[in-house]
Every structure is written in structure tokens, then in C-alpha cells.
């Protein structure tokens, strides 16, 4: 009997449940898809180093899943509370008929169970189908070869989804039981009669609050852009975040009152068609929804930043590679280790010879496998520290950035060596006159620091010879092949200056004697095999190869993209769903109002337009502020991630906009059509 009632309840309120159900299905599907990536990557034919990064990615994805589960759990409980509110009268009738609260709880339990089971089954089915497309994307991201299409079903992801959502539904059940046991009959029966009092806020208070909020927000914006360099520690970033969140809340609070006042003063606008009605609808609601508006706005803001940064990092990482990793291999070793007992005798001996000699001792034939070889040394000693090369501006910079390593030894390279390397790397060569130096760097903030001292024409003295800068700014370039711009600065000086200066590192950069990828992989394997040589204990040679850097970078890019997409989409769905449910849950009130408007003879077209505008403003309001936040947020992200490069930001912002329009816009349209259906005349 109670079971029948539950089913009938669900079927009857299917219109109200539709968007809730849709969101649940989507949540389950997304949860499954991203957890199923693990089993898809297992099937792929990729190298060992890619496997490591895939492993890391899968671990991170499952960590993020716990967080996502919290967000979705919060959403489900929140949505459920809305749906319960709408049914107060129904429960009231059950109670007056003599049904016990325990039985009502049981009906709710059955309903949640039914909705939960159906949404899990449908969501998992959808997830399994969509994850097949996802596997194509995964293979594409990792540039793995898809030999044939494989249908992948991940049992572990499926079980995990069932477990996580099972727990969430259980929480909903507990929550419902608690709610039912607490309610009073009189409140249930009269719930719909309580009409909200319309409170007009004092416009002057609104203006003051608004101005203060805008000021606070501007300060927060300035903190993360103009003053971003000041944000050296984690606790300093808390201030702009806190300020921004509070300002968001108060902007919504004050704008809701102010906007109406302004529109009301423009009489020809306010008293045109249903404008007064639409505006009042909006303002009567925003009074009570300032908090959720704020939450939604902030969630959208985070979504936009995560999505655009994640996509941009991946794009620029891959596009960086061709310029950042121009040669096949780079080997380096520390030279001239001190024989003070810290290092074994064999290593001290080995540190006196060049990279080439060490390789040959390891049994590797350098000239047979390498071509375009460039060999050179980097020089550094505690005689000249970074603080010394900054000259007069050191004090000022040290105040501004107190945590940089100013006491590290400055690195030098001979002009001739650098030009040989520049030829191989496709960089601009450097031509120095006597007593001149040039700084080569590609780390943006360090370039800024060094430029300050270069502009002051700061001289440096090496071995008694004083050099002055050739240019007032750094030259773009690097010595080590990496996937990101992290060259903080190397001094290129005339060869003879470094004659008796201590060496620090010996390098060898070369291309492989090979044309195809297979041959290159073979050579790379040979290099790895040298570690089996008995001489290997004496060496600390490091190698960066194009192939391994490539794989790491692809893996890292894919990882960031997946986590970004996962979080971004879940946040987006959560915020859109909350808005949609809020709007729909008030459709019963709206229905009466629209019926009344119809009675006094308003055209259907005018009614639909008013409804469209009402829901549109409601969706647009938090989005607009979120977009304004994001302009500064993305700037800050770009600053944080500048070593990854930011060339592809525009493209990624367009892609982010696409995702938002699709999901957020989709929810908006569904809400509009559902509401239209509800206010329609029977």
C-alpha cells in the first residue's frame, strides 16, 4: 500500500522531479566516467614513464572524487529539501488522516530508494556509453595508438559509484526522517499560506553598502593582479578571497534593492508591459536568495578559472615543447666535487672529467650515436652571488620578494659556448664587446627583477675584470631543456673572463644519429642501459631527453585537463541545478500570479516573455558577477602558472565559454520550458 503511494507520488510529481532526476543521472554518469578512466588507461599501449604519470593521474582523480562526492552530496540534500517543502500540504493531509510520522518517513524512504535506484541505473548506463567516447579522448590526450575499438566496462568505477551515491542517498533518508519527525501539523497545513513580506531596503543604506562592496572588491582584484607579487605566503591570499566573497554577498544584497529603486524611478520603463511585475518577482526572490546567489556566483567563478586554466596549461605545454626542447638529449654532471670526504674517491675522480669522457667510460660510443654535439661548462662560485649582481636594487627587491634565494651562486657561461648552443637551440646568438655581459633568462618574474638592475647599468667584477651590461633587459633564452620557462638567469660573458673561474656543471647537448622514432627509442634504451655498467657507481650524470620530456608533459597536461574538466563540470552542474530547482520550486506561487495576469487579459506572448526574462535575470545575475571575478581570477592563475606559458589563454577561454553556455544555458532552457509548462492553463 505505502509502496503504491510512493510510486504514484513520484509519477505525479515527475514534472517537478524531472530536473532533479536529470541532475542525479548526470552526476552519476560523470562520477563513473572519470573514475573509469583508470581502467581505460590500463589498456593503452604507452611507455613506462607515461604509465607513472597515468598512475599519478588516477590517484589524483580518485582523490578529487571524494571532494566531488561532497559537492554532489550537498547538492542532493539541498535539492531534496526544496522538494520536501513543496509537499508540506501533502504530508499534512497524511497526518490528519491518522498516518503516523513513521509511516510518512517510510514513504519518503521508499521514494528516495526508488529515485536513487533508477537514477543510479540510468546514470551508470549513460556513463558506460559516454565513457566509450571518453576512452577516445583519453587515448588522444596521451597520444596512444588506438589499434582497435575496445568496449571497456570498469567494475571498480561502477562499484565506487554505487558506494558513494549509496551513502549520499542514505544521508538523504536520514535527513528526511529527521525533518518529518520534527514538523508540526499546523505548520504543514498552513505552509502555503505564509506569504513572504516584501521588504524594501533603505536605498541610502544600499548605496553605501554597494559602494563599500565595490571598493572592497576592487581592492581584492588589485591584490591578485597589480599586487600579486606581494602574495608570497598562503595566508596573504586568504584576505582577497575573504574580501571577494563578502563583497560578492553584499553586492547582491545591495543591488537587489538598488536595481529595483533605479528601475522604479524610470517610470516609462517601469510601467511598461509587465516590467514592474518581472522586476518585483526578481527582487522579492533575491531578498531571500542572496546567500545562494553568492554561493552560485563563487562556484561559477571557480569553474571558469579551473576550466580555462586547465585547458590553457595543456595547450601551452604541448605548444611549448617544440621550442623548449629543441634537441634530442641533454646530459649534465656536476664538475670538480671537493675531496672533503663527503663524496667517494671514485666520484671525485669522475667529476674532473667531461660528460663525453664519462659516457665513454660507461661504454657508450658518443660519436656513433650522437650528432650535432655541443659540449660546454657552466661556471659558478660563491665569489659572486645573485645579490651581488643585483647591485643597488638588491635592497628594494629583497624587501619586495623576501623569499628568493639571493645568496645562491650566480651562473656564467662563455660567449662562444653559448653561441654554439644557441645555434643548436635556434636561439639568437650573443655578440659581446670587451667588458660587456648579457643575461639570458625566460622566467618572467626573474626577468623583471633582473631588468631592474640592468636598467641601472649595474657592473659585475669577475677575476678583477669589470663588465657592464650590453642591453638594459634580459635576452630570452635557456640552457637546460625543460617543459616550462624556469631559467632564472645565466650570465653570458667574454670567454677569457672565465679563464680561472670555478666550473660547476659540465653539459653535453646533442641529437641522435637516427631518423625514425624506433631508432631514437633504441638509442635512448642504450643510454638507460649504461647504468648497468660497473663504472656507473662513480657517476652522477643526469639526462633529459626529448622523448621523456614529451611523455611527461603530455601526461601532465592530460592529468590537469581531466581534473579541471571533472571539477569544472561538477561545479557547473551543481550551481545550475540549484538555480533551476529554486526557480521551479517557486513555480506554484508563480502559477497563481500568472493565472491572475491572464484573467486581466495579458497576452500569452507577454506572459512568456515575462517568464523568460524573470528566469533569465535570475540565471544571468550570478553569471555576470562571476565573469567579472574571472577576468581577474584568470589573470591571477596566469601569473601563478606563468612558467607553463600562457599563449593559449584566449583559445581556452573560448572553450570554457562553450562548456558554460552548453551546460548552464541548457539548464536555463530546461528551467524555462518546465516553468512555462507549469504556468500553462489546464
Amino acid at each position: 500500500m505505502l509502496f503504491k503511494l510512493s510510486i504514484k507520488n513520484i509519477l505525479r510529481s515527475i514534472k517537478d522531479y524531472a530536473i532533479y532526476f536529470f541532475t542525479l543521472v548526470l552526476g552519476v554518469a560523470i562520477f563513473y566516467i572519470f573514475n573509469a578512466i583508470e581502467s581505460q588507461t590500463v589498456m593503452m599501449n604507452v611507455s613506462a614513464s607515461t604509465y607513472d604519470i597515468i598512475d599519478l593521474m588516477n590517484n589524483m582523480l580518485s582523490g578529487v572524487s571524494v571532494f566531488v562526492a561532497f559537492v554532489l552530496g550537498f547538492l542532493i540534500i539541498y535539492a531534496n529539501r526544496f522538494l520536501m517543502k513543496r509537499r508540506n500540504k501533502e504530508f499534512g493531509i497524511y497526518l490528519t488522516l491518522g498516518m503516523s510520522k513513521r509511516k510518512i518517513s517510510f514513504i519518503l524512504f521508499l521514494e528516495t530508494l526508488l529515485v536513487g535506484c533508477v537514477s543510479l541505473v540510468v546514470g551508470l548506463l549513460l556513463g558506460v556509453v559516454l565513457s566509450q567516447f571518453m576512452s577516445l579522448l583519453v587515448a588522444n590526450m596521451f597520444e596512444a595508438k588506438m589499434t582497435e575499438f575496445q568496449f571497456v566496462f570498469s567494475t571498480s568505477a561502477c562499484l565506487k559509484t554505487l558506494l558513494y551515491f549509496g551513502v549520499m542517498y542514505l544521508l538523504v533518508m536520514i535527513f528526511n526522517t529527521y525533518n518529518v519527525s520534527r514538523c508540526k501539523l499546523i505548520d504543514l497545513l498552513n505552509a502555503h499560506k505564509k506569504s513572504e513580506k516584501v521588504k524594501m531596503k533603505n536605498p541610502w543604506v544600499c548605496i553605501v553598502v554597494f559602494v563599500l562592496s565595490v571598493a572592497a572588491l576592487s581592492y581584492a582584484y588589485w591584490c591578485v593582479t597589480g599586487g600579486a607579487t606581494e602574495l608570497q605566503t598562503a595566508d596573504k591570499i586568504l584576505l582577497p578571497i575573504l574580501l571577494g566573497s563578502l563583497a560578492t554577498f553584499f553586492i547582491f544584497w545591495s543591488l537587489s534593492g538598488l536595481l529595483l529603486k533605479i528601475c522604479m524611478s524610470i517610470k516609462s520603463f517601469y510601467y511598461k508591459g509587465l516590467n514592474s511585475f518581472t522586476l518585483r518577482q526578481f527582487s522579492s526572490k533575491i531578498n531571500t536568495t542572496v546567500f545562494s546567489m553568492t554561493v552560485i556566483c563563487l562556484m561559477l567563478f571557480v569553474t571558469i578559472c579551473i576550466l580555462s586554466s586547465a585547458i590553457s596549461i595543456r595547450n601551452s605545454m604541448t605548444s611549448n615543447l617544440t621550442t623548449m626542447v629543441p634537441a634530442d638529449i641533454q646530459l649534465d654532471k656536476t664538475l670538480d666535487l671537493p675531496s672533503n670526504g663527503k663524496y667517494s674517491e671514485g666520484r671525485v675522480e669522475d667529476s674532473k672529467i667531461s660528460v663525453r669522457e664519462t659516457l665513454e667510460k660507461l661504454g657508450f660510443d658518443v660519436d656513433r650515436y650522437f650528432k650535432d654535439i655541443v659540449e660546454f661548462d657552466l661556471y659558478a662560485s660563491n665569489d659572486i652571488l645573485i645579490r651581488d649582481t643585483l647591485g643597488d636594487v638588491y635592497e628594494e627587491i629583497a624587501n619586495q620578494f623576501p623569499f628568493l634565494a639571493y645568496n645562491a651562486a650566480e651562473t656564467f657561461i662563455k660567449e662562444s659556448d653559448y653561441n654554439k648552443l644557441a645555434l643548436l637551440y635556434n636561439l639568437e646568438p650573443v655578440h659581446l664587446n670587451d667588458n660587456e655581459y648579457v643575461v639570458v633568462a625566460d622566467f618572467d618574474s626573474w626577468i623583471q627583477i633582473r631588468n631592474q638592475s640592468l636598467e641601472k647599468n649595474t657592473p659585475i667584477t669577475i677575476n678583477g675584470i669589470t663588465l657592464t651590461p650590453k642591453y638594459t633587459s634580459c635576452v630570452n633564452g635557456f640552457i637546460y631543456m625543460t617543459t616550462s620557462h624556469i631559467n632564472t638567469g645565466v650570465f653570458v660573458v667574454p670567454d677569457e673572463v672565465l679563464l680561472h673561474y670555478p666550473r660547476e656543471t659540465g653539459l653535453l647537448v646533442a641529437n641522435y644519429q637516427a631518423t625514425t622514432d624506433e631508432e631514437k627509442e633504441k638509442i635512448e634504451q642504450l643510454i638507460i642501459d649504461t647504468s648497468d655498467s660497473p663504472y656507473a657507481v662513480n657517476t652522477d650524470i643526469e639526462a633529459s631527453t626529448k622523448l621523456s620530456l614529451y611523455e611527461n608533459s603530455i601526461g601532465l597536461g592530460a592529468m590537469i585537463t581531466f581534473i579541471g574538466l571533472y571539477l569544472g563540470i561538477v561545479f557547473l552542474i551543481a550551481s545550475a541545478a540549484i538555480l533551476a530547482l529554486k526557480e521551479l520550486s517557486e513555480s506554484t506561487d508563480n502559477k497563481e500570479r500568472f493565472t491572475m495576469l491572464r484573467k486581466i487579459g495579458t497576452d500569452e506572448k507577454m506572459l512568456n516573455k515575462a517568464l523568460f526574462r524573470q528566469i533569465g535575470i535570475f540565471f544571468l545575475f550570478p553569471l555576470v558577477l562571476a565573469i567579472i571575478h574571472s577576468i581577474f581570477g584568470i589573470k591571477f592563475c596566469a601569473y601563478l602558472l606563468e612558467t607553463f606559458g600562457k599563449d593559449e589563454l584566449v583559445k581556452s577561454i573560448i572553450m570554457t565559454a562553450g562548456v558554460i553556455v552548453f551546460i548552464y544555458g541548457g539548464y536555463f532552457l530546461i528551467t524555462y520550458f518546465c516553468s512555462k509548462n507549469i504556468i500553462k492553463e489546464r
Partner: protein
Amino acid sequence: METILKVNNVEKYYGSRSSLTKAIDNISFQVDKGEFVAIMGASGSGKTTLLNCISTIDRVTSGHIFVDGEDITKLKGNALNKFRREELGFIFQDFNLLDTLTAYENIALSLSIQNVSASEIAKRIDKVAKELDIKDVLKKYPYQMSGGQKQRVASARAIITNPKLVLADEPTGALDSKSAKMLLERFDYLNKELEATILMVTHDAFTASYATRVIFIKDGKIFNELYKGNDSRKEFFDKIIDVVTLLGGDLNDAL
């Protein structure tokens, strides 16, 4: 006299062939310009159904209704909405004011959907507010007003468009006797001074006694008709009570 409303052999059936309910069973009457007509009947007599048919909220099963010569049973879609907003004024038992709008805005709404300019709206509201004595509640919200004030605001909304016909469905139903009396005196004023044509549905003899003519309905048919003529309101009230007694005990609860 010019005929504003003409109801011709109107029938309204509910239900299926097997269990047919005749809510209105072949009713015909007409209302002239400047008349104040009350339709009386017990609950379930079909009076509200009749009003709904006239107001085009409901459709007739057969028969015709003419408002100012136009057959409104033939109207469809937006033509219906246009007819409602331009030719009719509505007053409901439960006021039907929008709770989110002030009294002023509620009244303005019926003009703004006709694209009347803001300055014209202000002028007309000023005038109607004086006539209905609601000048000091214009800035208030419905929840801040008494029932009588609400109903006068609703009346202002109904007559501000200068409709051909004002339809009132149990306008005093939710009011205490003092507010009801005040509202009816306003109706009387609107009818006599502004020549508004009013058709009012009620089951209350006191309310009906303010009209110039009362039509009695029982089981979907016209049962009787009374003209006030030169009677005083008290005399007219006594006559109405006589008919009500004749109608049976159904209406006694209304006294």
C-alpha cells in the same frame, strides 16, 4: 437604452454522457448600459459558471454571449486576451492582487499591459484613487492592507481601463460587514456617477440590495427577476428576502 451584454440561450454541461451535469440550463437575459445587476443563487446554482462564461474564462457548451454586439463565444487566443483587457473589468472574491506589487503598481498593471504611457497611468490612478478613497494606501503592499482596502484597490484596477462591463464575483465574500457596506457604496457611486455597467454575482441579499436589478438562479435556470425601480434600498432588500424564502432554505444561511 443601449444593450451592453446579451446572453442568448446559454448552456454549460459538465461531465460525460453517462453522468451529465447541467451547470447552466438555457439562460437568456440582457444588461443595458448603466445598469447594476446582481445575480443571486445558492452554492452550486451555476452563478459563478455563468460569470466565468461571460468573462471568457470558461467556454459555453451552446448558445451565444454578445458584449456590445460582438459574439465573444467565437473569440480565440489573443483576441480573447484583448477582449478581456480592453472590454472587461474583474473583481474577485479573494481580491487577486499580486502580493509582490504595491497597490499603485497593481492598478497600473492593467493599463501598462495596454501600453498606456506612465504619465497617463499616473493621472488616471490619481483620479480613480480619489473616487474609491484609496489615496493613502497606494504605496502599501496587499499584506499591509485591510480586506476592504484590498477590494477597493481591486475595484480600481477593474474600472481604470474604462471597461464596457465590470464583472464582480462575490466581491463582499471575504469582507466584514462594515467594509462590505463601504465597498457597495463605492459600487453605487461608480454606477450612478460614472455610469459603469456592473454585473455582480452574490449569495448575500444585503449585497444584492445595492443593485438596480436582481436575477435569481436556481439549478442553472433563471428563477425570478426583481427590479428596484423607485423602491428604497430597505424595501428592495425586503423584496429580495421574500424571493430568497421562496427559493427555499438554501439561501437562509446567507442572512
